[in-house]
């Protein structure tokens, strides 16, 4: 039992536990990362036996949960939207084969994007895979929808996707709940290789079954008053109606309430696929024009048949990219009201303020690595030692190495390695020895580094790979990696030794250095360069090992060093541009660089970077 202000992801976790979910797997990724830890918090406080795991990647997470779901259990796996790309292979096939228990895939979208490579819309992935999708508008609805998704999945033996967007995941809302208990459903597996290992011929039959399931679920979605509903008055016609789903629905609802607009009816579609055709039909015929407000792509709008009536992305009335924040939705509704010569809203009155702020030329605050971050030291040494190299990198805090000139590319998880081999072969074909340094974090390496590294070794690519091993998945909020041997619930697992995994991929050059020691790191890079160029050499791997200063606050810096700047500082800005430590700043009054002692963590790495030797121990 409880009464708490929960994060949206906490509300999802609560929904999972309330729905009797027995297995939860996940790979962290903003905005989904807090779901699994919140499940862990609930199972500990309530003494439940739910199985939880941080899987090594999203496909692994989905496969694991899927096996539970064909053992009659209720299972879920959680990831960010681009994680579902990794798990897509598994998803597409699971949709055909189906389940015996329940499988709910929670894929969190990031309109904005705030912390992702793309703004892709998981609802389209659901459409592609032909599985039902639910689109909550706030944390409370997300919690209710988890239960609905579990029930639907079990009843129709089909995976169901819940796609909370970032404003659900990272919203906070006060919620209360009753007693939580274990689900005692036991695992069973009925052998049926014709289904579980179906050959292409039977896949056609399964596809037919899937289509039949969708037809039935579509009908169910037409009478789902908690999540799919409208407020038409019978027999009345309207000049304009709004159709909205997910987070934009909650924004539309608040705006119409604040503006006291009862003249605009709203059709809310919380379960957009399979599309509730019979619910949308009378709404469409009662309104002369319809404005569709949905995030981030075009799903509901595609399903509406009478396109002449519909205003949305296809007609240019809704921006095709970017988050639909309240002022954007307020503005776009108002534009439509003006176009249709309907009573417009009062001016939002923010334009003058926006222009004022623009004129102030405020400093742009780009995200940067934390003071004392070991990645900063690594990038400094790499940039200094291998200035002419192409720097392929990857997804994590260290993508911010681009501020330090240490990152040239960032494509997707694991691409630092695969692109390094791709670059190598492209240049080698022209007999050019292009230096390449790839950087990847420890968690990302475990996620999808090994397949690329095996491939690169096998195909004799040549590059330096620096694995930035800070013993944590930092960017997403400090989840353990397989290297730690600590599992999602805090219990002990078997720690995977990174260097053994690298050696297992066929790499013969492996050095382990502490990047805080810039001289040692530089020496290692020199040796690695030689090895890469040697005809008898190969790929050189340097493991830059130093714990994250945030995750291991107490012992990441065993001996704190107080630094100060002497009058030798000539204001060349080298330290600010190449090292970019938040604790170093230009003190306009002193006319030189200074140290912000409240931010400095005393790592002492900067003692080795000033060309004039102006940074000293005080």
């Amino acid at each position, binding site marked *: 039992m409880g009464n708490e*202000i929960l994060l949206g992801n906490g509300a999802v976790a609560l929904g999972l536990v309330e729905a009797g979910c027995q297995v939860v797997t996940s790979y962290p990724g903003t905005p989904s990362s807090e779901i699994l830890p919140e499940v862990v918090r609930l199972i500990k406080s309530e003494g439940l036996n739910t199985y939880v795991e941080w899987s090594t990647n999203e496909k692994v997470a989905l496969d694991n949960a899927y096996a539970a779901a064909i053992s009659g259990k209720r299972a879920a796996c959680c990831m960010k939207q681009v994680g579902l790309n990794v798990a897509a292979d598994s998803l597409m096939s699971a949709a055909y084969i189906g389940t015996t228990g329940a499988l709910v895939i929670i894929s969190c979208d990031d309109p904005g994007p705030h912390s992702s490579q793309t703004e892709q819309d998981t609802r389209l992935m659901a459409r592609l895979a032909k599985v039902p999708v639910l689109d909550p508008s706030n944390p409370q609805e997300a919690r209710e929808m988890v239960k609905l998704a579990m029930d639907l999945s079990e009843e129709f033996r089909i995976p169901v996707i819940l796609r909370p967007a970032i404003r659900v995941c990272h919203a906070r809302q006060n919620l209360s709940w009753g007693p939580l208990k274990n689900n005692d459903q036991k695992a069973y597996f009925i052998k049926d290789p014709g289904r579980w290992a179906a050959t292409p011929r039977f896949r056609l039959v399964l596809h037919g079954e899937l289509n039949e399931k969708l037809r039935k679920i579509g009908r169910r979605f037409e009478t789902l008053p908690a999540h799919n509903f409208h407020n038409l008055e019978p027999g009345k016609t309207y000049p304009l109606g709004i159709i909205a789903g997910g987070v934009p629905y909650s924004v539309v609802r608040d705006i119409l309430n604040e503006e006291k607009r009862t003249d605009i009816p709203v059709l809310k579609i919380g379960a957009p696929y399979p599309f509730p055709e019979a619910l949308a039909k009378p709404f469409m015929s009662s309104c002369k024009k319809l404005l569709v407000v949905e995030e981030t792509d075009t799903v509901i709008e595609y399903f509406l048949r009478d396109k002449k009536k519909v205003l949305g992305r296809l007609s240019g009335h809704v921006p095709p990219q970017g988050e639909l924040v309240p002022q954007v939705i307020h503005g776009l509704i108002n534009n439509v009201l003006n176009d249709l010569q309907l009573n417009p809203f009062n001016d939002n009155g923010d334009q003058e*303020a926006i222009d004022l702020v623009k004129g102030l030329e405020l400093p742009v605050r780009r995200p940067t690595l934390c003071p004392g971050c070991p990645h900063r030291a690594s990038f400094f040494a790499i940039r200094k030692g291998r200035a002419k190299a192409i720097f392929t990198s990857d997804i994590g805090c260290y993508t911010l190495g681009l501020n330090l000139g240490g990152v040239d590319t960032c494509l997707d998880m694991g691409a630092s390695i695969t692109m390094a081999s791709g670059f190598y072969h492209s240049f080698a074909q022209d007999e050019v020895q292009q230096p390449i340094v790839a950087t990847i974090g420890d968690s990302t390496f475990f996620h999808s580094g090994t397949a690329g590294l095996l491939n690169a070794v096998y195909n004799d690519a040549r590059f330096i790979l620096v694995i930035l091993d800070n013993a944590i998945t930092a*960017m997403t909020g400090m989840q353990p990696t397989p290297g730690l041997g600590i599992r999602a619930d805090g219990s002990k697992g078997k720690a995977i030794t990174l260097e053994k995994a690298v050696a297992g991929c066929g790499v013969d050059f492996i050095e382990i250095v502490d990047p805080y020691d810039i001289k040692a790191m530089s020496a290692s890079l020199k040796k690695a360069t030689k090895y890469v160029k040697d005809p008898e050499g190969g790929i050189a791997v340097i493991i830059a090992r130093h714990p994250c200063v945030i995750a291991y606050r107490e012992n990441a810096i065993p001996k704190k060093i107080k630094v100060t700047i002497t009058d030798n500082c000539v204001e060349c800005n080298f330290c600010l541009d190449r090292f970019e430590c938040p604790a170093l700043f230009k003190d306009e009054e002193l006319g030189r660089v200074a140290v912000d002692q*409240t931010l400095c963590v005393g790592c002492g790495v900067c003692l080795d970077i000033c060309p004039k030797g102006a940074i000293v121990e005080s």
Partner: protein
Amino acid sequence: MKPINIVLCGLGGQGILFMTKIMAQAATAKDLNIIGAETHGMAQRGGSVVSHLRIGDVENSLVKTGSAHFLLSLEENEAYRNIPFLDREGSLYVNAKTDRFPRAEVKPYLKKTGIIYRSVPAGEIAMGLGAPMSSNLALLGFFSVFHEVPLTYEDLRETIDHISPDRFKEINLKVFDAGVQKGKEESRL
């Protein structure tokens, strides 16, 4: 009750989320509903951080521009950046040296719109008490002197007492009280 919209901002690491948590908890302790929005992930690494808090019965977590009743900023430039959120009857509270705030270009707009603005050297107050990371509590204490709706000084103080970890409780309350003191001095002027 009409919903109250609050925007809290500053830089990553300044304790904006804790400040939001205090206000949210204080509101739910009075049986008010809250919904809010936070910044996580890449955006949190040292960049601008904005947190939204809405008290009352609303569905969506974000404050619309032009509708915040209160804007609390732990950094001067971040305060300017977020001025568009303020309602024309809103109030702005900023951690900044009183003699320089606000910038000359901003003053006419604030005067014209009737936005109430006050600054307090919250960072200095916190630093003076040996808690340089607690400027958030000094600002909150200062703010609490001037408004009783929807949360009073007592509501906030009780919540801080309730949710601070034991080893920070005394210092947190001390910094909050110092902010209150500063507010009282100013309200007497």
